[in-house]
């Protein structure tokens, strides 16, 4: 018998969305997501099990239908529930702050991310955003998704905002001169 009705709060609640110059930052609702790490030699079995529920096994550094690469021997899967698999599975739905950067996302992220962001759509990178370990994925040529630990949501918003503001200042500069 439940006596409470817990209310959910997202990682970036109260922080986003914001628009600075041509750049918009918005929180992404990821729904239910799971980390899947196949046990030794079981990647194929996991891929088959996931295929049955309409999820494609992502290649290293790629997004696929309903899933994306997460790291060495790890993928992330979007699904309400997962089939039985010879893999370590953990609920990661609440572990991350996920923010989409749209507009001149490459220019903003070039201030914070030490990798070449001129990548094709669907590319996923584990790297840094400022001082934070992060996932950076290219959703469209003008939109990236950045994922950091949930507790760092405020720092992520701060870092992205600061970078976008400097770029907006440069934009104003081009008009000035």
């Amino acid at each position, binding site marked *: 018998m*439940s006596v409470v009705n817990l*209310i959910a*709060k997202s990682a970036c609640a109260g922080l986003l969305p914001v628009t600075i110059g041509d750049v918009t930052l918005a929180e992404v609702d990821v729904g239910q997501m799971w980390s899947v790490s196949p046990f030794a030699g079981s990647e194929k079995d996991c891929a088959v099990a996931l295929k049955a529920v309409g999820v494609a096994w992502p290649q290293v550094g790629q997004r696929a239908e309903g899933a994306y690469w997460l790291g060495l021997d790890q993928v992330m899967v979007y699904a309400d529930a997962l089939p039985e698999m010879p893999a370590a599975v*953990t609920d990661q739905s609440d*572990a991350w702050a996920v923010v989409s950067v749209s507009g001149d996302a490459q220019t903003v992220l*070039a201030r914070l991310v030490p990798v070449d962001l001129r990548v094709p759509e669907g590319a996923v990178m584990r790297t840094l955003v400022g001082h934070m370990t992060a996932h950076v994925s290219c959703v469209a040529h003008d939109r990236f998704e950045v994922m950091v630990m949930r507790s760092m949501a405020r720092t992520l918003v701060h870092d992205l905002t600061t970078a976008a503001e400097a770029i907006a200042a440069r934009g104003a500069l081009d008009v000035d001169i």
Partner: protein
Amino acid sequence: MRLCQVETVPFTFDGVTYRGVVGETLAAALIANGVKMVARSFKYHRPRGVMGSGSEEPNALVTIGRGAAAEPNVRATVQEVYSGLEAFSQNAWPSLKTDVMAVNDLVSPFLGAGFYYKTFMWPKAFWEKVYEPVIRRAAGLGGLSGKADPETYEKAFAFCDVLVIGAGPAGLMAALVAGEAGADVILAEEDSALGGRLLAEVEDIDGLPAMRWVADVEARLQAMPNVRVMTRTAVTGAYDQGTFGAFERVDRAGLKACFWRIVAKRSVLCAGALERGIAFPNNDRPGVMMAGAVRAYANRWDVATGTRVAVFGNTGDVARTARDLTDAGIEVVTLIDAAAGEHVIGTKGRHGLTSITVDRNGVVEQIEVDCLAVTGGWNPTVHLTCHMNGRPVWDDAIASFVPTPGAVPDMVTAGACHGVFHTMGCLLDGAQIAEAVVKTLGLKAKPVVLPDADATPYVITPVWSVAGKGRKWIDYQNDVHVKDIELAARENFRSVEHMKRYTTQGMAPDQGKSSNVVALAVLADVTGRGIPETGTTTFRPPFVPVPIAAMGAGGAGMGFAPQRYTTSHAASAAVGAPMIEAGLWYRPSYFPAEGETNWRQSCDREVNMVREAVGVVDVSTLGKIDIQGPDAAALLDFVYSNTFSTLKVGRARYGLMLREDGHVLDDGTTARLGENHYVMTTTTAASGLVMRHLEFVLQVLRPDLDARVISVTEQWAQFGVAGPKSRELLNGLLDQGVDELPFMGCADVTVGGVRARLFRISFSGEMAFELAVPARFGADLYGALVDRAAALGGGPYGMEALNVLRIEKGFITHAEIHGRVTAFDIGLDRIVSLKKDCVGQAMSRRAGLLGGDRAQLVGLKPVGDVKQLSAGAHLFESDAEPVRVNGQGYITSVGFSPTLGVMLALGFLDRGRARHGEVIRMVDHMRGLDAQVEVCDPVFFDPEGGRVRG
């Protein structure tokens, strides 16, 4: 003086308002306004004027702006003029014209090279109090404001196939060829405009003014999406694996500058060449300038550097300068051909040049001039090729150093920095080099039609210094003249590196860009060696000064480190809880209640609340690592000193982790959720460390183990509920009863239908639980827990109370397991199982880590008049003198126990476990505390543990 009518804006120099053209350099604007003297020299405070026209400028260093935003040591030859620009001279007081420290120049015979070393040796005590402050005031450059810089800096990353450094004829050609071949190109140019020397010279390309060709190439480059042109961007350093630093001046719209890290597969250095001077007596008066700069001011900025100009030099640039000045309507009084043995042997003019003395093969005459254009030839700008230990080589044909091929991996040089000194050659060199570079990238260059350009050969008769009386300056920025170098050699500082350090030649912001080759030529001369044998000093990054603020851009304030917030943060902050940092996390220190005026009152109340009712604390910051797999148990047995394979499903156990050297790494509670599924808890501080350690074990030490680890720290918001009423609190909240859950048990539960995990573990010695829910529900659950606790006479507690509660129970934290303690030291040697191998086991068996006189964990209570104890204090025998050799241990944690009404401490004491009951002495030398304390068991409260079992 301006050579044509232009639109101007106001700016100030030393408070006087002048007018300049937006975008021209401050140096050009000052010269146009007739300001000759712009600085006092570093050491002798001699009047100095603008020498050059680029970033190599040794003299014209100014401070831009005022107050916190003031930026010192800006080269006036680089700073662009804008409306309202404020510039100030440096190193002069009370004013540039009447600088009292100019007295240094009168006593200069005593201030030569090595002066500091020889003079300030004694008395030793005078150095810090007398000599250093005096020297710092007398000698020096601009000063910092001492305030935080309010301006914004950026840093950014860029990537390319080919980085072309410098946009003169060679660089433009290289960028064009590489770009048209399809390579991803960055063209970085430190000037505000493309063109390099073509900006400053009068030359034709394909029969049209050269700048027309530059504009055409710029348009073609801008039209290519694979080419990025970065102006005002000086590449400052060449680093490993094709990484470059670059400094971009922005200086508008609140944005000061951007520091770039550019990663390039290949680089083409087209940095051009720097003109060098000739050492002749009193060659440093304002008005004595580099000939190339004189042409630049006339040709690029339409500014005359004088009304009566003489030209002195040893290359074809003498005639070129005379031609350009005459064409611009500036009177050229005389030419002095150094190659033909004609020399300038003296100058006059206190604050600016008024005349020169010329010796033409024995015929001496004085000539009235207000500007002398000097050229001693050109030095290829080899600096970046030296950043990875490369040494340039001497080339007799140009009487200068050229880069050693391959000095920086994947870098080639083209144009003037490659020793090619006419425009036609630079165009050809740039094209050919770029063609070869793109080929190494698997690309094919399109055929290029080279335009027709000047191909006059460069002919030079080396002239370094001329005879005559008076100081012949070489390094203007450091006030080093020929005699200083001769003195260095005489005193046996004959190596070029020793000479540099003895005389300071080549140091400071300009790094000897204009003086190095002349200086070592003079050194070669006095030591009787050739120049190649003498060699060069080492050029190091940065090529131009880079403010630390730019390198550290984004790192101030909130950008210093990520801030981690728990889901309960807002609620804690709302009731006024001060936060303390724990790693990157912010945790509430205590929760001030009404009427409480200091933290101790709050802390005491919170401790009592937990002991008597119930308290709620956010423990989400502890690391939580999910471990699954057929070998999950085997992994835990290998990383923990004790055994986890025997743990029953649904139960938790305390675990101790060792480093491979046998010392304690971390501790925590690990629960078995399923046959092959565990969740490990780490301390807050060590969560990242332990995660890395587990990955190390799985990938490096035991890849045979089939187990997977992933952090779930952020997935769960976890709250401790501690106190005799904790069960009551949870029974009213969870969808299941908690009475059946045994001590050290764990279970899946639900809260209002939300999936949760419940652990019955305690860090307070009370009956306690930890309840974890998905983080999105954390804030709301925390509110519900605190409300329910309040209804039971409890409430939230913070880190201070948590600390006291655990000290009362003798539970350790990283204050105790600080990296130098063993399981034996903390009394846990019994849980180092020898039935299996584990990390650290072999080394933990070393005799020196077991027994003997090792300091062991003890509890301490004050028994004398002094009741105050302090962490960090040292322990001594009760009657021993409190000096280092008598030290027997130290205190790691203290807290006032409201439960026992006394201050308690944990610490380490030599053979401590055998000394319970002994009274010893605690001395905190820092805080001046001296107390008698009794040694006791570290568990002060409820040693039988009855309360935790309920």
